[in-house]
């Protein structure tokens, strides 16, 4: 293992404050940047990410006069590992953190799966939010048309058995230890457009150092994909029902493994009244990490009237 166990990244800044929120007894890690008296901006990460992945993006928003409140989903980052995980439980956790921060409506910026979850939460609880920015979290039923039904069933069947096998071994599951460089290399296939320097920095804020090496903190029972009858079309129904000002941002890079691959023409018919959609052909799914200044400027311009 290398002797140097710290990493820096240009512009990355740790949170100014941290606290815990109980979501029905489950501890969630909340990290904040910026003036505690500034208007609140909730920042929601995507699947397999954690709030410290905002270490560059969040300070840019905070420095523009927002109190940025980000949190780790259950089982992710420094939040508690849960007995059970579900989409609905994540929605409750989001609500618990938001209501712990303010009784008044706040603005929310969310990425990927976190954004898709917020679509559903805000469809049911519109009073908690006065403006919403969705960063590439707009799953449409028209994406991934290259997988036929037979192949989709085969994948689901394999995933079912693998998930049950993993549950059977739950108490034995451990994330594989590695060096900082090794852990960054293993994450690279999920984040192929992000620099290795960034991924190594992420290890030092998103993994823990055990005697035998670094391990990601995420609960080992969690895995990409999951199973259940979730359908991307349901997110479009939630999108159409939103009542607050809305900005959607789509990545146009087609070969991103973590992206939803939705196209503007898939989403536009479901935009809420007055909703705005931006599309970037040249940025991958992790828009706020790949081009943080450009995304921060876009978000700040949209949110300015909603302070």
């Amino acid at each position, binding site marked *: 293992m290398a002797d140097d166990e710290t990493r820096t990244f240009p512009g990355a800044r740790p949170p100014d404050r941290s606290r815990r929120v109980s979501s029905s007894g489950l501890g969630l890690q909340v990290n904040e940047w910026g003036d505690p008296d500034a208007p609140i901006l909730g920042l929601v990460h995507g699947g397999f990410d954690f709030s410290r992945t905002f270490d560059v993006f969040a300070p840019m928003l905070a420095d523009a006069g927002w109190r940025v409140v980000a949190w780790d989903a259950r089982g992710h980052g420094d939040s508690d590992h849960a*007995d059970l995980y579900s989409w609905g439980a994540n929605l*409750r956790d989001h609500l618990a953190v938001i209501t712990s921060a303010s009784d008044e409506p706040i603005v929310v910026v969310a990425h990927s799966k976190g954004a898709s979850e917020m679509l559903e939460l805000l469809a049911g609880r519109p009073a908690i939010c006065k403006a919403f920015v969705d960063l590439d979290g707009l799953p449409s039923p028209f994406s991934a048309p290259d997988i036929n039904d037979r192949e989709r*069933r085969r994948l689901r*069947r394999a995933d079912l058995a693998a*998930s049950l096998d993993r549950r059977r071994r739950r108490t034995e599951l451990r994330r594989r230890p590695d060096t900082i460089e090794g852990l960054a290399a293993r994450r690279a296939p999920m984040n192929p457009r992000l620099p290795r320097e960034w991924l190594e920095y992420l290890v030092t804020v998103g993994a823990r150092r055990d005697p035998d090496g670094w391990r990601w903190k995420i609960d080992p029972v969690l895995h990409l994909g999951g199973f259940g*009858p979730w359908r991307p079309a349901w997110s479009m129904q939630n999108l159409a029902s939103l009542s607050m000002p809305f900005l959607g941002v789509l990545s146009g890079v087609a070969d991103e493994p973590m992206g939803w691959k939705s196209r503007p023409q898939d989403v536009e018919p479901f935009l809420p009244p007055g909703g705005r959609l931006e599309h970037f052909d040249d940025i991958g799914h992790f828009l706020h990490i790949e081009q943080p200044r450009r995304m921060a400027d876009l978000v700040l311009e949209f949110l300015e009237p909603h302070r």
Partner: protein
Amino acid sequence: MSRRTEVLAQGRLRLALHTLAEGDPDRRPLLLLHGLGESSPRARPLWTEGWPGPVLALDFTGHGESDVPVAGGYTPEALMADVDAVLAARGPCTVVGRGLGAWVALLVAGARPALVCGVVLADGSGLAGGGAEPPSSYVEVLRPEPERRPDPFALVELSRDVRPPDYALDHLRFAVEDSELEHPVVVSARVRPAWLEAVAADVDVVELPLDEAVTYFADGDRRPAIDG
């Protein structure tokens, strides 16, 4: 007999598995799955009298004598893993599910076709779930009540889970394609939400009253011994 209870590990949670009848230990067990908000029966139901092997009943997570998880997160797929813990401990079983248990029984029949030797889908609480399409969004932070059973989180979450007919049919196909039984799925329920209507209409599915369904799989259970 009064029921005998053993504890199975499901991660950090403990599941209560009850033996309602010892039966012939060389025969396959019949596993009963209760409905939403229910728990296992205290004694073997009359309709199981035709089953020659052990009769077991599982309390799902958050129900009966099983543990209550912190802060919910219930899905039918998580309950499917509860059943899988029984299959891991006891080997192949025939499964009868009531209501919510019927939906879980179908899922696990598709996921573990080599270990689930026939399922019976019966009427009961939680048969419809949240319907074929998502119900209106409803999110509320609930107060933790670790000693309360059934767990209120389970009641809220498992009464709203979406059950598309094509998802049910996928699991039916998995079960039919890999089962050693010709008709591994029997429908006894008279109430037919959309998912169950689709399953019952499939050519590979048999419809029988509950007691006859149990006897149907009991006979199927005996057939290899007769043939052998």
